Every structure is written in C-alpha cells, then in structure tokens.
C-alpha cells in the first residue's frame, strides 16, 4: 500500500487555481522531491496532505486514512516552510514539548538534538540560533515517534552544504527503515543524488513524475561534448567535427542521446589532435525548465 496517494487534487482560492488535478503516489521507503517555482503550489499541496486546508476536489489518502485524521496525524511528520520556533525557549524545551504532544518520553529530546547536531546548543535559547540551527530544530521535531510519512517543505533552505549533506544522510536512514518522504526544494543539484523520484509542478499542474534517468530519456535534451584540442589544432578539430569553437583550445559539440556513441567515434578518429573529451549530460536545471515550461508554450 502506498503511504500517500493523491488523485485529481484541485485547489482554488477565490477562483484562482493553485492546484489543478494533481495525482501521484509515494511508497514506503521512497524519497520524492517536489520541484516548482515560487507559487507553483508546493506548500498548498503539502497543507492539503496534512489536512490543514481542504482540497476543493479530489482524493487524498495518507497512510490509508483521510488527511488530518488521527491515524494520519499519528504517523505523519511535517516541517513547515521557514518555521521559526519561539525565541524565548531553548532547543531542548522546544523538543520536549513536541515529544509530550506526541505522547512520547520528553527525556528523548537530547538524543534527537544530538542526532541533528544540536547537542551543544540544546540549552541555549532558540533566539540565539542561526537559520540553519533553527531548521535543525524543525528536523528534530520531525523525527519524533518514527513517522511513516515525512512532509518537508523546503527543509534545506538556509542550510550550509555540510548541514545539507548531514540532513540527507538522516533522511536516507529514515527511508531505509521504510519511511516515505516528500520534500520540496529549490536546490536542484542536491535533490539529484538524494531522491528516488522527481515531481515537477508548474502553476499548479503536474508536469512530470518520474525518476531522474527516465526524465532525462523522455526530455531527450541534447548532450554536450566539450573537446580540448591539442595546441593549435582547435580550428581543424572544429572543422572536422562541424562544431563550434569556444576559444583557442576548446571545441563544443551537442548531440542527441542516440548519436552519442557515433559522435564519440568521430572524436576518437581525431585522436592525434585531441587532448581530452568531457561528456556533459543535460543538467537538472535544463530538465526542470524543459518540463516546467512545456505547457506554457
């Protein structure tokens, strides 16, 4: 059974469509990234999943139950976008409160804070924390009670690269234990290696829902080949391969996915003139613009 099932979820605010017939699922142990511009509807979708706001139409099933039901709430953890905990409380006090609200033992607070790397700062007021530390408090509360579904709204915004890596390591552990994870993000490169599937929303519509490799295949975006020529040979290499010359030594080519081997063969044939070749697949940014713009044209 899927941890989360959305079918034809639509939300309108006073006639403005924030979500338009969105449908996808998240299975246990799966990490799904929700991508989209500002205003694409990511936060709205998450609030519907959590039962904070009702959908205008469509079906949502969370852990086999209705959003906001006791079963759904008991098994779901949430990290809101830009959450700021009360500055007068310490990290420890804040996490102890959330443990109590889940009916859990408040003595676990220190373990949770250690797990997100806040052990040292646990007894300091949250008002003195950096943005990244506050985000870790949010993550710590999301770990309470072994949630079976985690809904994380831009969880890594404001985190430095090391903190991001730690953060994804924790998520990997949760997913390995069978938790389903839905997270939204702006930072595409970090999502690339750390999620199993990508859902792209654009103006409330689902534009793509697949693994990164499948999206690459479907988009069929050109692959770039950067060729470093031997000194003085750049013009000849460019002429032979019908490529563009970037500077004195570099020649750039693009080719389709299916032509890749043929083009590499052409390049290999010129090996006396060539220093090095770099193959650059379409970036996630390219894919993202491809899928989020397709509709607007």
């Amino acid at each position, binding site marked *: 059974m899927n941890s989360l099932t959305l079918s034809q979820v639509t939300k309108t605010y006073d006639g403005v469509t924030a979500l338009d017939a969105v449908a996808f699922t998240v299975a246990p142990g799966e990490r799904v990234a929700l991508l989209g511009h500002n205003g694409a509807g990511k936060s709205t979708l998450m609030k519907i999943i959590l039962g904070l706001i009702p959908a205008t139409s469509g079906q949502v099933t969370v852990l086999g139950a209705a959003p906001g039901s006791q079963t759904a709430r008991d098994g779901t953890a949430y990290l*809101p976008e830009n959450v700021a905990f009360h500055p007068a409380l310490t990290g420890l006090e804040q996490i102890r409160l959330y443990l109590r*609200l889940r009916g859990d033992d408040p003595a676990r607070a220190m373990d949770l804070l250690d797990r997100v790397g806040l052990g040292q700062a646990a007894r300091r007021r949250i008002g003195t924390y950096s943005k990244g530390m506050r985000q870790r408090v949010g993550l710590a509360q999301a770990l309470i009670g072994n949630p079976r579904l985690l809904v994380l709204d831009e969880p890594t915004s404001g985190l430095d690269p090391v903190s991001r890596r730690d953060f994804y390591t924790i998520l990997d552990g949760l997913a390995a234990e069978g938790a389903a994870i839905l997270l939204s993000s702006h930072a595409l490169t970090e999502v690339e290696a750390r999620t199993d599937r990508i859902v792209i929303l654009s103006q409330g519509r689902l534009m793509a829902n697949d693994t990164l490799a499948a999206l690459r295949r479907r988009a069929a975006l050109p692959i770039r080949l950067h060729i470093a020529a031997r000194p003085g040979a750049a013009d000849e290499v460019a002429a032979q391969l019908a490529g563009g010359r970037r500077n004195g030594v570099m020649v750039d080519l693009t080719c389709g996915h299916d032509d890749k081997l043929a083009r590499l063969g052409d390049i290999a044939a010129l090996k006396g003139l060539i220093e090095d070749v770099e193959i650059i697949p379409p970036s996630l940014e390219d894919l993202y613009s491809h899928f989020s713009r397709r509709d607007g044209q």
Partner: protein
Amino acid sequence: MTALARPVAALGASEFRIALRNRWVTITVAMMALFALVLSAAGSAPTGDVGVDALSVTVASLTSLGVYLVPLMALLMSFDAVAGEIERGTLSLTLTYPVSRSTILLGKFAAHLAVLSIAVGAGYGLAAVAALVVDPEATAGLPALWRLFWSSLLLGAVFLAIGYALSAVARRPGAAAGLAIGVWLALVVLYDLGLLAAVVADGGGAFTTHALPWLLLANPADAFRLYNLAASEATSAAAGLGGAAQTIPVLHALISILLWPLAAFALAVVALRRVTP
C-alpha cells in the same frame, strides 16, 4: 493523565516559561507590586473613618487599580498568542500533531492564568502584609481581599480570552496589538466615560434607572468593580458610578463576572477554528 490533560499540561508548561521570559509581563508584574505598595501606604494613613480597617480601605483602592491593570496584563500576554504562532509558522506545525485547537487554547489559557495569579497574588499579598503591619485590625479586610483576588482572576480570564480572539482575527502580531489596545481603551476607559456622559445628559431619567444597571453588568470590568464594591459596603464611597452600584444586586454582578470568562473563551475557540493556517 487523561488524553486531554496531557497536551494541555505540556502546552501550558511551555507557555508559562515563555510568559515568565516576556519582558512586558515582568514590567507589569513589577508595576502591579509597586502600585499595590503605594496604595497600601496611602490606605494605612489615618483616615479618621471609624470602624474601617486599613486593609478594607486598601481593597477599595486595589479594586480601582485592578480594573485597569489586570485587563492590561491579560491582553499583553494574550495578543500575540495566535498571531505570533501564525507568523512564525508554528501554529500549522502544532496543528499537525494530535492536538485540537481548543486544547492549544486551553494550554495557553492555563499558563497565562497561572502567571496572572502570581502577579495579582504578589501585588495584593504585599498590600495585605503592609496593612497588617500597621493595623492589627486589618484581618477584618481579608475576606474582601480574597474576593478581590479571585474576581481579579476571572476578570483577567475574560481579557485573556478576548486577547486570543483578537489575535486569531488579526492574524498579524502588530494588528493584534493595535486591536488589544483599542479593546482595553474601549472597555476599561471609554465605556465608563460614555455611560457617565449619558447619565449626565439623562438627568436621572429612564436611562439611568433602567438601562444603566444592565449596561454596567454587560461590561466585565464594570461588573468586577460593582461586585467588589457592592460586596464590601464600607468602600462604596470609592465607586465612580457609585449611585448605580447601590441599585444592582451583588448576585447579578457575580453572575456577570462568572459568565464572561466562559463566553469570551467560547468566542476565542470559534475565532481560532476560523483560522486557516
């Protein structure tokens, strides 16, 4: 603990800490204590009244003080309660926990009421000690002081709940603070001035005899004052609208100050239920 008491206790303990660390709450508690001392010093000066002990005189002054300060303190603690959580994003987070909206309000209410009882208790307690030191007869005023204490908490409860309702309606802390000041001015200051002006214009007519008592009962601050003044006859001279106070039965004033907290809390729950996080 029962399923309801546990989250209320958890939220309450957390809110209690937050209130204790709130600078404004500290300032009003200090103000309360200071005023109470000043009033009891004034009250223990020989008044010439025969048969009136120092504490009873102080209670009358404390009633007039409490009617302004207690609602102010309550609103200072409560105006941010919902709007602040909406702004910080913690309201939507808490609502994804297995906790209902009325539970969230009950937790805050319990904590704020506890802080209020500490502040009011400290202020009135100081006044009592001061009165007992100068006048051994002052024990006669203790029942009046006790009545003033718990009715002050009821008055505070009303304004806490009004503060939550305003906070939920305003959604932003700045707007909520503005509304809270407005409500304090309207209910505690302007309402009485308006009634006074109407009484003067009416010149002892139907308004003064029929409408005025009900209008006084309808305002929790006036009901609080009427209850405490009417209940201790010795001090009725201190009443601003003293004439009317005589015509209103103590029971009516008591019913008003008992019903107001319930009504205001129900209003706050309704207002919070209407908030979309």
